[in-house]
């Protein structure tokens, strides 16, 4: 009986030896980009957008003969949007030679990967994670963010709220770190603008039924509603709020609430809802127009959605950093990224050296019809220097 232990151990050993890869990655000329992202689960839709944008950027680059002569290659692995799985898959990608990582969805995934990047000799470029921590107290030299952080979204609320006529506001936010932060900054913005907060509600993440909250908002007498819900929560709420007539009665605006893909799902329900827009295909820059045209040609007339635009921007940054560094080595690329200025779909933007946060303009607008389709229409552009608050000082950036 006991001897069978040995047998098991022996089997294990030989299995391990069989599965081991043949040797270290050799192709130094190839720019290998690892994409750990959500392919299954609630965030699979967002993962699909990230992958589409990355594939688009890579195909474009390879068609031009590669990035500074380096052919680009990607590998995608499923993280299920879980930090622990993201860590495992990112490590796997990095050790297989895909040392430039991007495409993760949940902030927790980025936070989980951060401390390990040095161990893997990898870098991570966030294009979707919004938690302030990433470029705040959890910042590391090998982590970069080319998308807006929560603080950048919060910064545009204050001027915008001042321009609104509604005096009584309700807040409905997801009861998770991001939603709480957004709710808090809205309260502050309201104080500055002398608006009343008549209800401040945090709904559990992944709620099915929003009726109790809708009822609370209705009976609070709010004229305006600020919503910080994303994905499934956003759709469930919007659908049910429409049913209860809330969307027609109250002025509704939000953050991450009516993204392109939510608009696609919600259809007419989302029409007229205001919100922060981090990227829209309707943006009027030459680079963006070219990008949108190319995208439409490739994807049967579809326009890029917000996460697709943001991820594409991240790829532009990575490619330009590689060109500048004349190397695909992660450390060299990181050096080129830190403090660098890049030509992107949003124009010329700088990646701040202090905390590796991209200094970006931000936008406000509403969902309206454009070219027969509902899209986020930008009404207000907040320039990068206003939209991006200075580094808070919580980030103690080390050396590469």
């Amino acid at each position, binding site marked *: 009986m006991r001897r069978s232990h040995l047998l098991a151990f022996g089997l294990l050993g030989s299995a391990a030896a069989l599965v081991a890869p043949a040797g270290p990655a050799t192709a130094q000329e190839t720019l290998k980009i690892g994409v750990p992202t959500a392919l*299954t689960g609630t965030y699979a*839709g967002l993962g699909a957008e990230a992958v589409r944008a990355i594939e688009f950027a890579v195909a474009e680059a390879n068609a031009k003969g590669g990035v500074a002569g380096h052919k680009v290659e990607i590998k995608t692995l499923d993280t299920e949007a879980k930090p622990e799985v993201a860590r495992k898959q990112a490590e796997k990608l990095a050790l297989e030679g895909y040392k430039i990582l991007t495409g993760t969805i949940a902030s927790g995934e980025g936070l989980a990967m951060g401390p390990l990047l040095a161990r893997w000799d990898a870098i991570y470029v966030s294009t979707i994670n919004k938690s302030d921590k990433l470029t705040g107290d959890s910042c590391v030299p090998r982590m970069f963010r080319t998308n807006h952080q929560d603080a950048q979204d919060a910064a545009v609320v204050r001027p915008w709220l001042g321009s609104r006529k509604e005096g009584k506001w309700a807040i409905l936010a997801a*009861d998770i770190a991001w939603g709480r932060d957004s709710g808090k900054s809205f309260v502050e913005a309201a104080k500055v603008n002398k608006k009343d907060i008549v209800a401040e509600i945090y709904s559990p993440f*992944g709620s*099915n039924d929003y*009726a109790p909250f809708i009822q609370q908002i209705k009976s609070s007498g709010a004229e305006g509603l600020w919503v910080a819900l994303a994905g499934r929560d956003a759709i469930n709420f919007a659908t049910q709020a429409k*049913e209860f007539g809330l969307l027609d009665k109250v002025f509704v605006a939000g953050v991450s609430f009516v993204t392109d893909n939510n608009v696609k*799902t919600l259809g007419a329900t989302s029409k007229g809802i205001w919100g922060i827009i981090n990227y829209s295909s309707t943006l009027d820059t030459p680079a963006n127009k070219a990008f949108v045209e190319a995208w439409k040609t490739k994807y049967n007339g579809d326009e890029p959605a917000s996460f697709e635009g943001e991820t594409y921007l991240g790829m532009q940054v990575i490619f330009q950093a590689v060109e500048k560094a004349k190397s695909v080595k992660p450390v060299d690329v990181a050096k080129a990224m830190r403090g660098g200025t890049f030509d992107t779909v949003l124009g010329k933007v700088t990646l701040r050296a202090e905390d590796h946060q991209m200094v970006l303009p931000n936008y406000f607008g509403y969902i309206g019809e454009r070219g027969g389709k509902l899209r986020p229409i930008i009404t207000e552009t907040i320039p990068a220097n206003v939209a991006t608050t200075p580094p808070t000082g919580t980030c103690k950036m080390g050396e590469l």
Partner: protein
Amino acid sequence: MLVQILNGLVYGGLLYIVSVGLVLIFGLRRIVNFAHGSLFMLGAYVGFSVAAMGGFWGALLAAAIVLALVGALLDIAILQPLQREDPIVTVLVTFGLLLILEDFAQFVWGKDFLKSPVPTMFSGSVLIFGESFPVYRLVVIAVAALVALGLSVWLRLSKIGLYVRASSADPLTTAMQGVNTDRVSVIVVALGAALAGISGTISAPLLALSPSMGSYILIESFIVVVVGGLGSFAGAFIAAIVIGQVHNLGLVYVPWAATMIPFLLMVGVLIWRPTGIAGSHV
């Protein structure tokens, strides 16, 4: 407050329709079906696809039929061959089924969220307690009440309902009386799955459709089934209504503890009565 209670009734009603299928299957097969949430999800998608052409009733019917077939297949191909094994083996099999169904839905309907419109005949709202209340939500309550009523009438008055009750209590004696208990089991699992499908279709206009949507209701329906008493229809009904209320009122009045309340309720009930409110099995 009164409207909130009505809201709780809607949610409780929805939970009831999802859970009662689990109760049926557990009562006869003594199996905790982890794939039940996925059957719910599949029902929502089937309803979504059919609603475009067949309307609400067509969607409901299609979801019921498709899911009944899935349930029948599940019983014949998997549950019956495994009925002499340890129940945990069957539980794992339903785990496997959960994974397959999620993958299947993602393959067929894609990864993006989908949404069913509220059927036009039930759109709009009515005034209740001085507040406008969506008609469709009243329909959900009505459907839950109909299912509860229909099911208890069927179980009480029909021949097959009698066989179901008899073989849930004592399959051997029932079989000795000449009842084909294998067929009863196929019918029960098919009906349980069909109810999951119907509940999916019903909730499709309220919820975002995604392959993983089943996981958001599975645990809550487990709570309903366990608190009500495994295998008890009346218990499930009471538990669903109670949990619907506790859930909604908790969210409004004790938001910091609301998500934990159903779990604590379940722990409390089980420690007080391991068989649940009205159950006789453990």
